[in-house]
């Protein structure tokens, strides 16, 4: 492939894009410019999102839904407008299917708890099974472990192939008539793998299991359509898609949201309350107890506008090119082993690797001294490390503002790491 330090011809104009992200001008350690390769942990935020936050607080701040005064109406319109934007961004059939949570973890816990407290036919109990995969983020493992413990349900999972993909060979034994729910990640935060939707969805439908998709590492990076992925629930998180911290999303099919019980109780989620009993508001409000993350939803709406204006297809193409280039260059580094797919096919913008037997902590530390920010550790996906017999990985991850020059800096930095511990 062709590349230059100035960007990829035909792809995103990163020079212009980077001007939108104030933090990318940050200078570290005696004059080294920040090379931020940790977007899979959290993305940076463009000026447009920060301006939306300031504008909200400086002009319109009020609590939502219950007010007849101007600020309350404006705040409500902004908050509910953000819901419209997110619904459009993921092509949700109805805006009422978009629930704002605090992060993807809450979204996934919300589903697990709804199913634990549900009536039939949804109820997860001791006669039923839950299926996940070995490449899940802890946030899509622990909620199901807790549910299994508390209901007596059995937790099962797909294993992984040596090249970092789901092993679907025993799918019919894993997903059975007993399976009530299958929850899997669309894109792995540690391996980078994009998982196949069709096969899992087909088998789940065959046995009547609900499908939950953790799209935390997918929605930020590619055009996303909830109607295309054949899921019943989809979780993702604002801070990884140019939005603020403190906001996540759960999309769910309307009829399920109507049938399933609430999770958190409190203000906003009720219809009428007496000391003896309460009835609940229709979704999405049923699942949004208390004062919602108002400013954060507004910020996420601005992030969605920002990403849409650039174009999700263009962002995906840009990242694909970066990943292709990065894989090519990293594979030339001596002793470097990629943990996950080694080609850019069906692959996201996170690349994990080990470097000889230099511990990732040490790799990360020496890179940091050169201004290069990568993540090291098990990336909240420890079972993947166990599976591949490694304690941890170093992970470089890219986004719309990443450049080939940053890939070059990483490769040079790794050379320095090898010399240091050589």
């Amino acid at each position, binding site marked *: 492939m062709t590349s230059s330090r100035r960007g990829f011809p035909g792809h995103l104009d990163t020079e212009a894009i980077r001007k939108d992200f104030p933090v990318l001008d940050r200078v570290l350690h005696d004059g080294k410019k920040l090379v931020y390769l940790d977007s899979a942990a959290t993305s940076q935020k463009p000026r447009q999102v920060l301006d939306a936050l300031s504008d909200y607080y400086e002009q319109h701040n009020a609590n939502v*839904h*219950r*007010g*007849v005064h101007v600020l*309350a*109406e404006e705040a*409500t*319109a902004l908050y509910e407008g953000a819901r419209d934007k997110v619904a459009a961004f993921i092509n949700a059939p109805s805006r009422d299917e978009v629930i704002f949570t605090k992060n993807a973890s809450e979204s996934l816990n919300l589903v697990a708890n709804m199913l634990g407290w549900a009536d039939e036919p949804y109820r997860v109990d001791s006669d039923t099974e839950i299926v996940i995969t070995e490449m899940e983020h802890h946030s899509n493992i622990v909620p199901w472990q807790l549910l299994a413990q508390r209901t007596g349900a059995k937790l099962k999972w797909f294993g992984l192939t040596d090249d970092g993909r789901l092993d679907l060979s025993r799918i019919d034994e894993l997903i059975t008539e007993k399976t009530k729910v299958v929850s899997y990640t669309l894109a792995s935060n540690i391996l980078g793998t994009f998982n196949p939707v069709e096969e899992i969805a087909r088998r789940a439908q065959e046995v009547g299991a609900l499908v939950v998709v953790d799209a935390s590492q997918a929605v930020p990076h590619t055009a996303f359509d909830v109607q295309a992925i054949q899921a019943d629930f989809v979780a993702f998180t604002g801070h990884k898609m140019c939005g603020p911290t403190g906001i996540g999303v759960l999309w769910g099919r309307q009829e399920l949201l109507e049938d399933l019980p609430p999770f958190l109780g409190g203000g906003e989620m*009720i*219809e*009428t309350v007496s000391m003896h009993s309460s*009835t609940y*508001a*229709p979704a999405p409000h049923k699942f949004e107890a208390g004062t919602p993350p108002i400013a954060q939803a507004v910020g996420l709406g601005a992030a969605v506008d920002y990403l849409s204006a650039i174009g999700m297809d263009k962002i995906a193409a840009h990242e694909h090119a970066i990943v292709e280039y990065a894989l090519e260059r990293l594979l030339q580094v001596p002793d470097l082993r990629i943990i996950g797919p080694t080609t850019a096919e069906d692959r996201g913008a996170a690349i994990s690797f080990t470097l000889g037997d230099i511990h990732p902590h040490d790799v990360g530390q020496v890179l940091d001294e050169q201004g290069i920010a990568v993540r090291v550790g098990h990336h909240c996906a420890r079972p993947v490390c166990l599976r591949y017999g490694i304690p941890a990985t170093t992970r470089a991850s890219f986004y719309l503002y990443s450049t080939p020059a940053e890939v070059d800096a990483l490769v040079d930095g790794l050379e320095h790491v090898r010399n240091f511990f050589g």
Partner: protein
Amino acid sequence: MALVKLDSMYQDVILDHYKHPHGRGLRDGDAEVHHVNPTCGDEITLRVRYDGERIADVSYEGQGCSISQASASVLNELLVGKELEQARRIQGAFLELMQSRGQLTPDDAMEELLEDAVAFAGVSKYPARVKCALLSWMAWKDATAQALGAGDEDGPKERTA
């Protein structure tokens, strides 16, 4: 004090209906529903009585603001005596007007259809109050479905929004 905007919400017609409501009180009916507006606590109990397809009576009792009270009064005035089909047309037009966010100026046909109810045009600019204006109309729709057997079987619904 300039109250142009406000006056456009609190039309004299509305204040009139509020202070002198039509057909208030509960009388015999074929079906009864109870609706609440969870965002503000407005409540209405509403009964319909049908004479074939003709609306023989709409009786109601409730508590709420001037907008929700006046709206129930206007509903009674407009719908009682009408054929169901015509009543549905009126209800549809009122819903359209209320959801217009102040963008719709009623034309002659609409004015003729809605009579006093056009006075609520100004309310559509206030999202928090639209639900007040619609409360009795949603209750009527629900009660009608029940009375004529077209509704679901859960009995009185508690949901408006």
